């Protein structure tokens, strides 16, 4: 199929010359092309924020609260100020009193009067070395009056509970998450089988190997340059401009230069106190100031995945068709508000639309406590919701007497469906994914034996075609040609290790008919890169990919137009292959791309070839009832797992792991598999080991020794299965895959454990202690 016009029309480019892109004989898209920035990374040349030095740079360090809830009676920085090498010591008095950050603007970057969590910043220093800065912190004298704290959201919701933010009048955030579709109460009456239970999930943290950090630098006119590892450069720029305004620096410019980013997973989706502290220190000292988190800070002072308590009830009719799903959720918001509080919006996606379920009711409350505050983490609430849904679904299958796979197939989503939350399902490979799982696991031979070995499965739905969570879901691309037929691609899409640098290059190379090595991708500087809403919601391949596709088609049209004059040929007959423009009609009419470009540049009255394209997908914000087609397409997948449970120790061993994902089209199977394997192991960590242990607001295991992140020894035999469904709106048919890899892992494992030994663990992580305890209880009951 010659798909050029489809691509052109899809992106509504309105080009006079319509370039050809042959979808059948792809040369770059679909190939296992190594990540573009792997070479500098394997020789140690990649510069992470830890490695960046700016001349004259000072080192900033932050003093945190010693108590999760206390009044600050005295804060004396005089001794620290006198230490040789200290250039500035700041407290809340050095920031505008009303300046707040975060989703609810409830977080002053430096706290005064009262501290609400163990990570509350109360002072900071800038010094000529890291060591002096640390010593200075130890000289700051703070006197506290310890206050009783609230560490349990259920306690915090009680009448008369101590208020964290007195002005808010309640510990429950004013974010009333509520989704109602159909009539759950009526459906309950008509259900043949109903199950109900409670599930809970812990705080887990991103564990980016590169810790957080930044360098703030002001020029003589107080314009800010921030060296950063943000995954939202354009939105961070906006946050910083707001901050500078608040600091009395109106109408200043902000430039963000991203160093190579040492892992994201959602952790860099917001801006944080330390960034604003670095700015104030830089302003006070008139020097660049660098703040780099230690691993200890990375554990306690960054924002984890929020923990949840979920009540769920689901029902089906006699044939096993789902009748309703009702869920109530409580999220520990911690002391301040970041994106963690908005994850119920994404939880709604599986709650309303994972399988066909006509009647849905969901409410969620986010509750202030004196714990750490939460943020986005890969999956954005979906893993918590899917753990409850898919565990409960197995319970339902059991009471209904239906094989869990059959129940899932009976209710599986299908192309063309409009879900109760008004998601328009376009491509959908859910059934294919489940079939891959049962086939590869030998489900029929292994399920329901209860011999200490067992199999389990779970599916997922996630946004796969962008997600309109802001007013825009857009991304820009600029393409510029040089004299030699090589291109510079300026994209808004950040690379946090996932490989957008490579995907964008592949798409441009494919459209332009040039080798991928001729494509240079620039993606880390707001001064030159176009606007983008950020790396989140698994949107980059889809949105930045379509943006790159549009820009590439536009510049190809320009190239063909100038080449047409040069070759005296109608552009309709021209195409480019391997860097040579040629006529499909007359094989004598060819010119190397570079030659054509030089002719344009050097001609009298010449011009330069450059194209830009901003792609904002045709998806919708939720309406006031939280309904609307959030994404242009939806990603599906199913994971299946075989486990062996040691009844003596409670140890769960994964014998086999199948992760099948509907990705639309694999633009780069090598990187794609990397997302599936990486996501899968994060999911296994979430299922079986990881938990941030907070006791009375204090983190008890904030290091790699005590926080059990999986190592190479923990990986099971795993198969990544790619299912292609050719998403009509995706670039070359692709959908998102960044987050899905970890979404169904925990319930698949929990279901397999139940199949193996008949105990259901409803509280993550599934530790040997919990399994053993459940086994003993089961034995008692006989």
């Amino acid at each position: 199929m010659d798909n050029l016009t489809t691509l052109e029309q899809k992106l509504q480019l309105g080009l006079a010359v319509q370039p050809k892109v042959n979808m059948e004989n792809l040369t770059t898209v679909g190939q296992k092309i190594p990540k573009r920035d792997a070479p500098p990374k394997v020789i140690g040349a990649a510069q992470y924020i830890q490695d960046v030095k700016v001349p004259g740079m000072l080192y900033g360090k932050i003093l945190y609260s010693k108590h999760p809830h206390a009044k600050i009676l005295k804060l004396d920085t005089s001794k620290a100020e006198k230490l040789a090498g200290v250039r500035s010591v700041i407290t809340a008095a050095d920031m505008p009193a009303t300046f707040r950050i975060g989703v609810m603007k409830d977080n002053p970057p430096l706290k005064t009067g009262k501290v609400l969590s163990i990570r509350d910043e109360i002072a900071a220093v800038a010094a000529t070395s890291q060591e002096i800065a640390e010593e200075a912190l130890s000289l700051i004298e703070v006197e506290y009056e310890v206050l009783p704290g609230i560490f349990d959201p259920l306690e915090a919701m009680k009448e008369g509970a101590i208020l964290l933010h007195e002005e808010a009048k309640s510990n429950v955030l004013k974010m009333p998450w509520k989704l109602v579709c159909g009539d759950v109460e009526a459906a309950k009456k008509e259900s043949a089988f109903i199950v109900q239970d409670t599930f809970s999930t812990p705080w887990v943290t991103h564990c980016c190997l590169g810790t957080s950090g930044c360098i703030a630098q002001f020029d003589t006119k107080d314009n800010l340059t921030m060296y950063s590892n943000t995954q939202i450069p354009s939105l961070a720029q906006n946050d910083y401009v707001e901050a500078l305004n608040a600091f009395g620096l109106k109408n200043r410019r902000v430039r963000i230069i991203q160093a190579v980013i040492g892992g994201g997973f959602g952790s860099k989706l917001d801006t944080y106190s330390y960034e604003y502290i670095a700015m104030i220190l830089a302003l006070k000292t008139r020097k660049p100031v660098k703040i780099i988190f230690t691993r200890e800070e990375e554990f306690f002072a960054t924002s984890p995945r929020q923990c949840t308590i979920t009540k769920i009830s689901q029902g089906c009719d006699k044939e096993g068709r789902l009748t309703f799903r009702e869920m109530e959720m409580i999220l520990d918001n911690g002391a301040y508000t970041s994106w963690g509080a908005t994850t119920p919006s994404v939880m709604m996606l599986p709650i309303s639309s994972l399988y066909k379920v006509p009647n849905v009711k969901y409410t969620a409350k986010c509750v202030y406590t004196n714990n750490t505050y939460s943020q986005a983490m890969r999956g954005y609430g979906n893993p918590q919701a899917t753990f409850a849904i898919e565990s409960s679904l197995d319970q339902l299958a059991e009471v209904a007497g239906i094989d869990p796979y059959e129940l899932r197939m009976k209710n599986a989503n299908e192309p063309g469906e409009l879900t109760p939350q008004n998601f328009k399902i376009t491509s959908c490979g859910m059934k294919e994914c489940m079939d891959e799982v049962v086939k590869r696991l030998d489900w029929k031979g292994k399920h329901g034996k209860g011999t200490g070995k067992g199999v389990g499965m779970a599916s997922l739905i996630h946004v796969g075609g962008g997600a309109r969570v802001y007013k825009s879901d857009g991304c820009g691309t600029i393409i510029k040609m040089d004299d030699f037929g090589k291109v510079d691609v300026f994209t808004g899409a950040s690379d946090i290790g996932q490989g957008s640098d490579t995907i964008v290059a592949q798409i441009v190379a494919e459209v332009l008919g040039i080798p991928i090595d001729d494509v240079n991708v620039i993606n880390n500087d707001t001064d030159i890169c176009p606007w983008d809403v950020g790396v989140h919601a698994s949107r980059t391949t889809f949105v930045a990919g379509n943006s790159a596709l549009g820009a590439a088609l536009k510049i190809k049209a320009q190239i063909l137009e100038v080449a047409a004059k040069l070759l005296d040929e109608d552009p309709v007959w021209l195409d480019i292959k391997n860097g040579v423009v040629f006529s499909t009609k007359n094989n004598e009419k060819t010119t190397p791309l570079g030659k054509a470009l030089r002719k344009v540049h050097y001609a009298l009255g010449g011009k330069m070839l450059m194209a830009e394209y901003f792609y904002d997908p045709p998806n919708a914000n939720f309406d006031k009832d939280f309904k609307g087609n959030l994404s242009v397409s939806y990603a599906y997948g199913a994971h299946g797992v075989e486990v062996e449970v040691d009844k003596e120790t409670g140890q769960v061993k994964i014998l086999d792991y199948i992760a099948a994902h509907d990705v639309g089209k694999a633009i780069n199977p090598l990187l794609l598999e990397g997302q599936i394997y990486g996501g899968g192991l994060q999911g296994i960590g979430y299922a079986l080991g990881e938990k941030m242990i907070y006791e009375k607001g204090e983190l008890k295991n904030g290091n790699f020794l005590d926080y059990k992140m999986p190592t190479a020894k923990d990986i099971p035999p795993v198969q990544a299965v790619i299912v292609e469904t050719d998403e009509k709106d995706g670039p070359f048919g692709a959908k998102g895959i960044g987050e899905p890899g970890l979404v169904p892992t925990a319930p698949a494992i929990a279901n397999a454990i139940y199949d193996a030994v008949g105990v259901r663990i409803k509280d993550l992580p599934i530790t040997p202690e919990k399994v053993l305890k459940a086994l003993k209880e089961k034995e008692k009951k006989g």
Partner: protein
Amino acid sequence: MKKELTFTLNGEAINAEVDPQWTLLYLLREVLELTGTKEGCGYGECGACTVVIDGQAVNSCLYPVMEAEGKTVTTIEGLASRNGQLHPIQTAFINEGAVQCGFCTPGMIMSATALLDTKDKPTEEEIKDAVAGNLCRCTGYVKIIDAIKSVAGGR
């Protein structure tokens, strides 16, 4: 009180004035500006700072700098040949897709190098053991192990 330290670093003789309190990582990153070796935790639990000393993979963040006296130290910067030819393990990491964010990559490659220098054909278990102290959050380790295997097989 600074002391003199002499050792071989990436094939060259190094004579440095060091504070005996320093770790080897500090000398490498902050003084010699060899920032390819990463600090991921500073207490020997993540392996991002792994270098090879006399054939052994070592966490340089825990290694007292004076201990390097007279020893041969190789960092990620010293793995490729002088004409820029990458070491086979570096090429394998690129081609097998073993690199995502890349922060663990230098340490991971150094651990792999120490293994491959002593064992021609390590088993999968031996590979996992060799990199068990190198944490990676991006890749799920699968392609890292594939990369090491591919070199082991090809030697």
